[in-house]
């Protein structure tokens, strides 16, 4: 869903609240992209808000992870300090508590890098969604630089459509889940060979009529895993933002209902602390969701390697 689909039509505050919330959590419109790129094989490669955020997240991940690790490894006597110390603790925790028990000691070093990449990428993407970067830029643009909202050529005005949480977009999480899906295939094939990997899908030694039911069920299970990953991450990341915006919208709704600014300000005494509390909860959600995606990916890869029927 794109931001302009929902629009900002006229009407009562109650009518506009839903549109505003959807506008905030959705991606910007592909027909008004931030950066124009050509269409290749019928696919428009133009950069929308969430694509831009993916690039930003990739850049942050490079600067925060790859650069310190490279510098640490290049040191003559590598002793982790500060950020590198924290990084080492997190990497060790994920390797020893998530990857190793699931994929086994033989494959831990093969799959730990991918699982760690998932963890840090999702963590940064979730985390950046909590920072009101574009809202702040919009304030500066409007009040400090004096650029009107109607200026369609202004770069920052383009950025003000849709929220910055890339992991709240189902296409992004579907992309991540597709990587997990392909990894499950590769991990199973590497561990058992191509034919045996597919044979391992169902238990051995059963009567043949049972396989007529079991094979389709197992094939469904194959697609359900990435589907569950896709829906869970995107829904959780979108849900938190919707909750915060809905709580904050009470101010406008109450002011409109009672035709009084005082009612709106009074409601702020309730809704702002509530929104702050949900925001605090969201900080935990940012970590937990990155962790759960990582954990489930490790479990699914482990299930393809260590087959138990």
């Amino acid at each position, binding site marked *: 869903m794109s931001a302009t689909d929902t629009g900002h039509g006229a009407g009562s505050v109650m009518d506009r609240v839903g549109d505003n919330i959807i506008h905030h959590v959705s991606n910007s419109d592909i027909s008004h992209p931030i950066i124009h790129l050509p269409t290749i094989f019928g696919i428009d490669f133009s950069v929308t808000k969430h694509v831009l955020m993916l690039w930003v997240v990739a850049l942050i991940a490079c600067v925060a992870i790859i650069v310190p690790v490279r510098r640490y490894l290049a040191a003559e006597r590598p002793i982790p300090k500060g950020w590198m110390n924290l990084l080492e603790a997190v990497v060790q925790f994920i390797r020893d508590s998530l990857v190793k028990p699931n994929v086994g000691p033989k494959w831990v070093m093969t799959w730990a890098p991918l699982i760690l990449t998932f963890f840090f990428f999702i963590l940064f993407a979730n985390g950046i969604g909590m920072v009101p970067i574009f809202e702040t830029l919009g304030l500066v643009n409007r009040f400090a630089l004096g650029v009107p909202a109607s200026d369609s050529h202004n770069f920052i005005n383009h950025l003000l459509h849709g929220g910055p949480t890339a992991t709240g977009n189902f296409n992004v999480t579907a992309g991540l889940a597709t990587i997990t899906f392909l990894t499950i295939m590769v991990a199973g094939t590497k561990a058992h060979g191509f034919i045996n990997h597919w044979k391992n899908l169902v238990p051995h030694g059963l009567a043949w009529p049972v396989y007529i039911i079991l094979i389709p069920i197992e094939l*469904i299970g194959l*697609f*359900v895993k990435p589907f*569950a990953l896709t829906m869970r991450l995107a829904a959780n990341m979108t849900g938190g933002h919707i909750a915060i915006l809905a709580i904050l919208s009470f101010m406008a709704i109450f002011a409109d209902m009672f035709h009084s600014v005082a009612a709106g300000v009074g409601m702020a005494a309730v809704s702002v602390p509530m929104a702050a509390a949900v925001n605090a909860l969201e900080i935990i959600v940012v970590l937990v969701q990155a962790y759960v995606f990582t*954990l489930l990916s490790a479990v699914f890869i482990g299930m393809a390697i260590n087959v*138990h029927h």
Partner: protein
Amino acid sequence: MTDKPSRNFSRGWSAFQKFVSQSGPAASASYALLGSILFCTLLGYVIDTAYETSPYGVLIGMGIGLTAGFYHLAKTMWGGRK
């Protein structure tokens, strides 16, 4: 005396790591159950919309989803007991 908090932290951390590694299959089973039902029901809905077969697509999809979901749940539970 000064050793005690760090020892407690280390024990707590080890217990946390143990619970984390054990929670994986349970989390995967619950998500597979929910995912199967949602996935197959949505697939049924898409078929219903495309071929105007409402409500049979959704009903059959939900049935298949429930069967597949509970099969995976049972497999995880019994596999875990072994």
